């Protein structure tokens, strides 16, 4: 099962490499990763997605919690949550396809953020499966380049991950 693990950790050099190292050292996979400082500059928020059954995820979260720089973490997929990923995608847009691509962008509520006579650069946000669906809709042969930010997420309602 796919999981979104969100970690609050000390914003210190070396902390990130310990998290990444843990995954490779113990044979866990990281599917996506995003990290940036929070409103409190001493803390970073790291969100990663991984796959595993309950036992494996339990081991992963226990080991993450053991890292000295990890302050708190939550498996967002355990409760109601909001998931977003940003994608910038360059697609071929010539002839009849130009209008077709534009329509798809509108349907997916994306934005065309740069244009040339043959190429559209599109910005799209949403859950990862929505971004996947967009690529599917456009057709892979049209795609020239894809950049995705990795998932970030937050719990719904009043639950917060903070000190």
């Amino acid at each position, binding site marked *: 099962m796919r999981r979104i693990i969100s970690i609050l*950790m*000390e914003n210190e*050099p*070396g902390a990130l*490499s*310990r998290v990444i*190292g843990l995954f490779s*050292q113990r044979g866990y996979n990281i599917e996506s990763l995003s990290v940036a400082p929070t409103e409190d500059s001493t803390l970073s928020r790291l969100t990663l997605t991984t796959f595993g059954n309950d*036992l494996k995820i*339990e*081991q992963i979260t*226990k*080991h993450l*919690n*053991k890292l*000295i*720089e*990890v*302050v708190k973490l939550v498996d967002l997929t355990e409760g109601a949550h909001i998931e977003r990923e940003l994608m910038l995608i360059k697609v071929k847009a010539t002839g009849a396809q130009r209008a077709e691509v534009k329509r798809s962008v509108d349907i997916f509520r994306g934005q065309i953020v740069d244009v040339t006579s043959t190429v559209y650069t599109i910005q799209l946000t949403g859950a990862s499966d929505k971004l996947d669906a967009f690529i599917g809709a456009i057709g892979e042969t049209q795609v020239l380049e894809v950049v995705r930010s990795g998932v970030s997420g937050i719990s719904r309602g009043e639950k917060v991950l903070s*000190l």
Partner: protein
Amino acid sequence: MEMLSGAEMVVRALQDEGVEYIFGYPGGSVLHIYDALFQQDKVSHILVRHEQAATHAADGYARATGKPGVVMVTSGPGATNAITGLATAFMDSIPMIVLSGQVRSDWIGDDAFQETDMIGVSRPVVKHSFMVRDAKDIPEIMKKAFYIATTGRPGPVLIDIPKDQTAPNVKNPYEYPKKVKMRSYAPVSRGHSGQIRKAVEELMKAKRPVIYAGGGVIQGEGSELLTKLAHRLNFPVTNTLMGLGCFPGTDPQNVGMLGMHGTYEANMTMHSSDVILAVGARLDDRVTNNVKKFCPGAKIIHIDIDPATISKNIMAHIPIVGPVHQVLEEMLSALDEHGGEPDQKALERWWEEIEGWRKVHGMRYETNENGPMKPQQVVEALYKATGGDAYVTSDVGQHQMFAAQYYKYDKPRRWINSGGLGTMGFGLPAAMGVQFAFPDATVACVTGEGSIQMNIQELSTCLQYGLPVKIININNQALGMVRQWQDMQYGGRHSQSYMESLPDFVALAEAYGHVGMKVTKFEDLEGAMNEAFALKDRLVFMDIYVDPTEHVYPMQIADGSMRDMWLSKTERT
């Protein structure tokens, strides 16, 4: 406030931590610190002959005393030489501080002379590590390092110190912090009371219980309480390789070590049990054999300070996360409150069954009338010569297993070996560390002709500091443990498992200024042992020739359950 250089701060912090010994080896990047060490006399520096030995010596010191071992090495090769020792300590949860020099801050990343990314290289084998980025931070970093190394599940902590941060002319105010404040590190201090009560209920209902006690009981100073609990309940106790001594080896309730080379009765007891109380043990693969066939009828109560250990290999029915000392104490009072007693009738039947198992194998081995001595005989002679009261360190191989099986450890911290990593070369430097901690104690290093050669240069250190360690070299002229596997699984093809040109160990010991003895006949063994141990202030290297074909038994059959064992070369369960 006092103004100190970074180098002086390092040394002062060691003093403030009450460190007696630091094991190390100098080099360019730590010379400022060595100069500061020279100008004081509270912390003694022990000069080893190889940095790996410094780490094992500090490790041996830590295992024997419970206090953290401290190491200092230079950057680059000095630091990388410390990696095996860090990994050894990490696997066995031993508190250790390694101070490694680093190139100047402004050279880091330039492939400078003797630069190694030590934080990166050591990352998977340390509990935590620090890089000193500002000399002002040294007191706080040192305090945190000792705190992290010694609390919770203990482990090694590395501090990497660029040379410019220790410069003698840059002074900063020094005050050693009294307390550590870390929002992201809070080791568990109490087990869950509800879980402890649930565990007591389960123990009361048990008809075939067993206590399975590991290294965590020794680490957490829980031996007395565990012994009290076991006596109170009259349950059988088995120990892991790391737990030997946490419950007296000669106690009638002790069924011996469990696992791959555990006793027949310990493995049978485990397999047939209905309740297992696992204390400070991590259900390692050398113990469980095939996890799918592990103790099919048992409910598992698992006490460990590290939540990641619980249900890692085997699901625990009643997990209790907490320090063994506190949990056992609370468990004892919960027993009082409960007021009941375990089912005596069932226990009586259980003990009868166990006594029956004891008779099946009984750790017997065949002796040769006129042929070579058996390694087991050597350990038994050692036990006799030392009155069972020595500190025994060991290397890795068959001799290690024999030393675990045939020496009965009645006290914790007496048996000192590398279990998790299985590091050949551990024994002699570890014995040095123990001897420094207890100068008057009898310290024996049980080793093999393979292992001893991995850190034999330390004979020189032993001479320098007058360490009267007794080296019991069980010389089977082979990498015996490897050979055993080749006998059992590779049709007796001894690929690279024996050594054709062994040194004359007696001459070697003498060349290093020690006493050497060679023993080839069993009838000379006892006399030679007594003679060696009578030489109270000399290191004696006993080179004892034994049967090269001997195997360690019992031995669990790979992929089977705990009760599937070879009992000799021809008998199996």
